[in-house]
C-alpha cells in the first residue's frame, strides 16, 4: 500500500501552482496518472522516487515511512528501490545498450532476463551500440528494458511508449500487463493514450493543475459507466457521415478503420477526434488462419 | 631632483653583490647626481640577456667567467677588471649551533647549504674548503644546493639547512645584522673569489655615465664601501 499525502509548490504555466496530492495505491495495483501537460504528473513520480523533495506531507510504502516532513524522515533515492522510466530516457551515453541494462541489473542476478528483454524489445542487434546512434523509439525501449531489468517492487513509467509505433507499442503493453501480473509489481504509469490506459490500468487518477480532479476505474472514468461485454476496443472517431435515417461513424481501432452505424442522436454527441469505446455483445466472427511468410 | 629616464643607469648586478651595490649606487648618486637602477639577477641570466642586447650599462658580476664570456662575445667595451674579492663564511641562523667545520660532521647538522658549484663561485669555493679540510666525503650526503648564493641564504635563514656557506657580504649586510652567527673561513682553503665588472657596449646607451660609474667602482671611496661589506680589494 502506497499512501501519498504530499504538497509541493511548483511553477505552473499560469504562475505558481500548488501540487497537492492525497491518494492511496494498493499493493500490486496498476495505476495511471492522467492529465494535461504541466499538471504535475512527472513531479508526482519524482517525489515518490525521492528525486524531488516535497514541501510537506507524508509518504509511506508498505507501512514504511519514506518521507515525513514533520519528523524529517527522508529515505534516500537509492534505498527506495524503484524502477523508473524517465520521460527523457536518461540513458547512460558512454555505455552500450547492453551495458546500460547490466548496470541496472542487481549484482549477481542472472543474465537471462537481460537477454529476454533485449529479444522482446527487439533490441537484439543493437546491444553493442551507444545510445547516441539509436532512433528515438529504440532509446525509449532501452529505457523501459533498463527499468524492468532492475526487478523493482514499484515501477514508475513516465510515458514509456509514447515514441513507439502501434505494432511494438501493443506488444509492449501486453508485456507490461504480463509482468505486472506475474511479479505483482505496483506500477504507476503516466500516459496520454486513453486506449492504453483503459487496456492496462486498474485505476486512474486524473490530475489537473496539481490536484486530483477525478479518479476511478478507467472504464468508469472515461465512459461514465461500467460496461460488460464480450468484445471491447478503444478507438478514435475519424469521420461522421449523416445518412437518411442513421449516421455512419468511421472509427479508427488500432490501425484499422471500422464503420459503425449509430442513431443521429448518438452521433450528435460525437465529433472527429473523440476517443470512444467500441463494445459488441452479439459477436460471432469467422476465423481464418494466416499463412506465415 | 629626479633625473630624466635616459640618464638613468642600469646596473646589471649579480645577486650576491646586491647589498653592496645598493650602497655604491646611493653613494655614486650623491656624488654625481646620476641615478641608477639595479637589475638583480643571476650572472648566468644577465649574461644571456646582455648577449641578446639587454639595455644594461654596466655588468657587475660575482665572478670573472661571465664578464669574460661577454667580453669575448664582443659586448663589452673593455676587458673585465677585478673590483673585489669575495670572502666565504660558514653561517648558521640557529641559536644553538656555533658555526665550525667540525660541527658539520655532527648529527645535529642534517643539511649544509651551498650555492650550485657549477654556476656560483661561492659554491665552488665551498667545495674547495670541504675538500681541502678533508671532510668532503663525510658531508657530501648533507649538501643541498641553491640555484644561487641568494637561494642558499634562504635555505639557511629559513632554518631548513642548519648551516651553510655564503658570502661575508651577505651576513654583514644591514638586513642580516641581527641574525645568526658566522665564521669567516680561512682564505687559504679556497681559490680567491675574484669578482669582475665590464661596461656594456650599447648603441643608444649612456656610455659616458656608465664609464663614470665604472671608474667610480675602482675609486678609493667605492673600494672602502666594498671593504666595509666584507670584500677584500687589491691594495
Amino acid at each position, binding site marked *: 500500500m502506497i499512501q501519498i499525502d504530499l504538497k509541493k509548490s511548483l511553477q505552473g504555466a499560469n504562475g505558481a501552482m500548488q501540487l497537492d496530492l492525497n491518494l492511496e495505491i494498493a499493493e500490486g495495483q496498476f495505476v495511471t496518472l492522467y492529465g494535461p501537460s504541466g499538471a504535475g504528473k512527472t513531479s508526482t513520480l519524482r517525489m515518490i522516487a525521492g528525486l524531488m523533495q516535497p514541501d510537506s506531507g507524508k509518504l509511506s510504502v508498505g507501512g514504511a515511512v519514506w518521507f515525513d516532513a514533520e519528523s524529517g524522515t527522508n529515505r534516500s*533515492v537509492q534505498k527506495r528501490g524503484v524502477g523508473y522510466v524517465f520521460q527523457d530516457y*536518461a540513458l547512460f551515453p558512454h555505455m552500450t545498450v547492453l551495458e546500460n541494462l547490466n548496470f541496472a541489473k542487481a549484482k549477481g542476478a542472472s543474465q537471462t532476463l537481460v537477454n529476454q528483454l533485449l529479444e522482446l524489445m527487439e533490441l537484439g542487434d543493437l546491444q553493442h551500440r551507444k545510445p547516441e546512434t539509436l532512433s528515438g523509439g529504440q532509446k525509449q525501449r532501452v529505457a523501459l528494458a533498463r527499468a524492468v531489468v*532492475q526487478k523493482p517492487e514499484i515501477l514508475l513509467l513516465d510515458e514509456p511508449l509514447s515514441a513507439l509505433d502501434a505494432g511494438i507499442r501493443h506488444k509492449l503493453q501486453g508485456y507490461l500487463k504480463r509482468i505486472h501480473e506475474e511479479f505483482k509489481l505496483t506500477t504507476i504509469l503516466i500516459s496520454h493514450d486513453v486506449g492504453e490506459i483503459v487496456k492496462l490500468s486498474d485505476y486512474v487518477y486524473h490530475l489537473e493543475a496539481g490536484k486530483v480532479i477525478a479518479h476511478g476505474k478507467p472504464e468508469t472514468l472515461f465512459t461514465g459507466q461500467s460496461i460488460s461485454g464480450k468484445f471491447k476496443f478503444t478507438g478514435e472517431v475519424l469521420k461522421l457521415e449523416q445518412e437518411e435515417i442513421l449516421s455512419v461513424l468511421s472509427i479508427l481501432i488500432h490501425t484499422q478503420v471500422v464503420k459503425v452505424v449509430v442513431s443521429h442522436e448518438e452521433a450528435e454527441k460525437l465529433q472527429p477526434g473523440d476517443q470512444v469505446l467500441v463494445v459488441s455483445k452479439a459477436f460471432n466472427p469467422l476465423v481464418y488462419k494466416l499463412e506465415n511468410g | 631632483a629626479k633625473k630624466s629616464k635616459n640618464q638613468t643607469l642600469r646596473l646589471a648586478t649579480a645577486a650576491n653583490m646586491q647589498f653592496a651595490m645598493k650602497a655604491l649606487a646611493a653613494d655614486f648618486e650623491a656624488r654625481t647626481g646620476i641615478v641608477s637602477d639595479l637589475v638583480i639577477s643571476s650572472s*648566468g641570466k644577465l649574461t644571456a640577456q646582455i648577449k641578446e642586447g639587454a639595455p644594461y650599462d654596466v655588468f657587475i658580476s660575482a665572478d670573472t667567467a661571465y664578464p669574460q664570456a661577454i667580453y669575448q662575445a664582443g659586448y663589452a667595451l673593455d676587458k673585465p677588471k677585478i673590483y673585489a674579492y669575495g670572502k666565504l663564511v660558514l653561517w648558521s641562523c640557529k641559536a644553538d649551533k656555533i658555526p665550525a667545520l667540525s660541527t658539520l660532521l655532527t648529527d645535529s647538522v642534517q643539511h649544509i647549504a651551498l650555492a*650550485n658549484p657549477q654556476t656560483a663561485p661561492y659554491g665552488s669555493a665551498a667545495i674547495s674548503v670541504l675538500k681541502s679540510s678533508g671532510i668532503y666525503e663525510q658531508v657530501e650526503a648533507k649538501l643541498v644546493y641553491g*640555484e644561487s648564493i641568494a*637561494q642558499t641564504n*634562504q635555505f639557511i635563514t629559513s*632554518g631548513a639547512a642548519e648551516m651553510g656557506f655564503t658570502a661575508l657580504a651577505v651576513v654583514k649586510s644591514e638586513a642580516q645584522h641581527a641574525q645568526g652567527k658566522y665564521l669567516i673561513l680561512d682564505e687559504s682553503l679556497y681559490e680567491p673569489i675574484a669578482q669582475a665588472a665590464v661596461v656594456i657596449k650599447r648603441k643608444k646607451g649612456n656610455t659616458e655615465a656608465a664609464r663614470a660609474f665604472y671608474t667610480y667602482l675602482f675609486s678609493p671611496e667605492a673600494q672602502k664601501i666594498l671593504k666595509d661589506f666584507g670584500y677584500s680589494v687589491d691594495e
Partner: protein
Amino acid sequence: MNWEPLLLTFKLALVTTLILFVIAIPIAYKLSRSTSRIKPVVEALVSMPLVLPPTVLGFYFLVAFSPNNAFGSWLSEWLGIKLIFSFPGLVVASLIYSLPFMVHPIQAGLSGISKSITEASYVMGKSKWETLLRVQLPQIKPALLTGVVLSFAHTVGEFGVVLMIGGNIPGKTKVASIAIYDEVEALNYDAANAYSLVLFAITFCILLIVYLVNGKYLKGFWK
C-alpha cells in the same frame, strides 16, 4: 648525458598526477554540487597557489615544512616525515602547486553533466560514489584528460618550487628542469639544448600517445 634527472622528473610527474587525480576528484565533485555560501571562496582559494611566483611559494613551503616551525617539527616528530630536501617534499609541493590544474577542469566537466542521468543511477540504487565513478566520470573524459595533461606537463616543467624545497640534490631532488636550468646558467647551452630536446621529445611522445589512445586512434586500449 645524465639520465637520472629525467627519470626523477617523470617519476615526480607520474606520482604527482596520480595522487592529484585521486584527491582532486572529491574536491571537484564537492565544488560542483555545493550551493554553500563559501563555495566561491573555496573556488578562488584553489587557484591561489598559482598566484605567487614558484620560488616564493617554495620559500613559504620551506619555512612551513622546516623543523624550526611548529608544523614542520610536528610532521617530523609525530609522523616521521621530512618534507624538505626530500622526494616526498617535492611531491607535496607539486601537489599543492598543480592542484588548480586538476580541480578546475574536472569541476567544470562535472557541472555540465545532465541531471537526469545522475538521477537514473541513483534510482538504480547506486551510491553517490559508484555513480561518480561509473556514470559521471566516464562522461567527462575530455575534462579528465585536460586535468591530467595540464598537471603532468606542468609538473615536468616546474622548477621554482621544486628547486626551493628540494635543494637540487643529485639523484634525489635534482629533476630535469633544474638540470636544464643549471646548464643555461652555466652558459652550457649545448648541454641545455640536449636536455631540453630529450625532455621535450619524451613528454611529447607521452602526450601524443595519450591523445592517440583517447582519440581511439589506437583501439581497445582505453575504453
